[in-house]
């Protein structure tokens, strides 16, 4: 199922793999860096506002959200966009991820 989009489809598809448990581990792990990035801003003593979350997420993802590591400055144009000048449309692309983690944290306190 190359274009599975919903998690339950992916989980069902995992059962078709020779090692379903290993496959399930892979699809879970694929999401955990994004979970960690969002949680890094949600476990302090202060609940950040949406605007603060947007800003802080922009900062973090300019380091972790691409594949160029320390070459990111040269290779990723978005890394060079000053955080304060980040367009609303750009923030809107990253917002669903931290919002999803925020909601999941309410349902699964850790």
């Amino acid at each position, binding site marked *: 199922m*190359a*274009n*599975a*989009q*919903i*998690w339950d489809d*992916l989980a069902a598809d995992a059962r078709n793999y020779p090692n379903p448990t290993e496959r*399930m581990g892979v*699809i*879970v792990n*694929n*999401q*955990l*860096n*994004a*979970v*960690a*990035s*969002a*949680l*890094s*801003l*949600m*476990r*302090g*003593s*202060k609940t950040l506002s949406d605007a603060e979350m947007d800003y*802080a997420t922009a*900062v*973090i993802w*300019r*380091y*972790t*959200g*691409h*594949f160029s590591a*320390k070459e990111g*400055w040269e290779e*990723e*144009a*978005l*890394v*060079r*966009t*000053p*955080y304060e000048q980040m367009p609303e449309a750009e923030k*809107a*692309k990253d917002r*669903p*991820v*931290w*919002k*999803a*983690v925020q*909601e*999941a*944290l309410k*349902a*699964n306190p*850790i």
Partner: protein
Amino acid sequence: MKKAFYPLLVVLAGVWVIAQAQLALSKQDYDEFYTHVVLNARNTSKEEWLASYDPVVNFVAKVRQDVDRLPDATKQAFAKAVHNNGYWKSQEARILDAKDPFLGSRLKGSDDQLKAVLTPQGFEAYRNRYGQRPDLG
């Protein structure tokens, strides 16, 4: 196993438990990360951006270690939430935006290069968006 080793095992288990507890990040660690790392990060020059590289990446890596220690059911709940409500929507928005600077430059690559940086769903969305309508690319 000889009973004489049991006390040693208990001690080793205790050391392991303490080590694990010490690895877990505290509320203060998170506060300091936000206040001293995130809010002080700047990207108006390469030097400024690089100055915060290790503090950001290393802290998120520690959080990831804490995430990895969560029960499997919790990890799956977070992964499902991010996949269904977050990651996919975010990537779809980037893929559908031909000017997106994070993915846009990669859309000029070969299919193999794209597969290396996109999820299977993202690659399929790319093909649906651009593969069948090359005039849009």
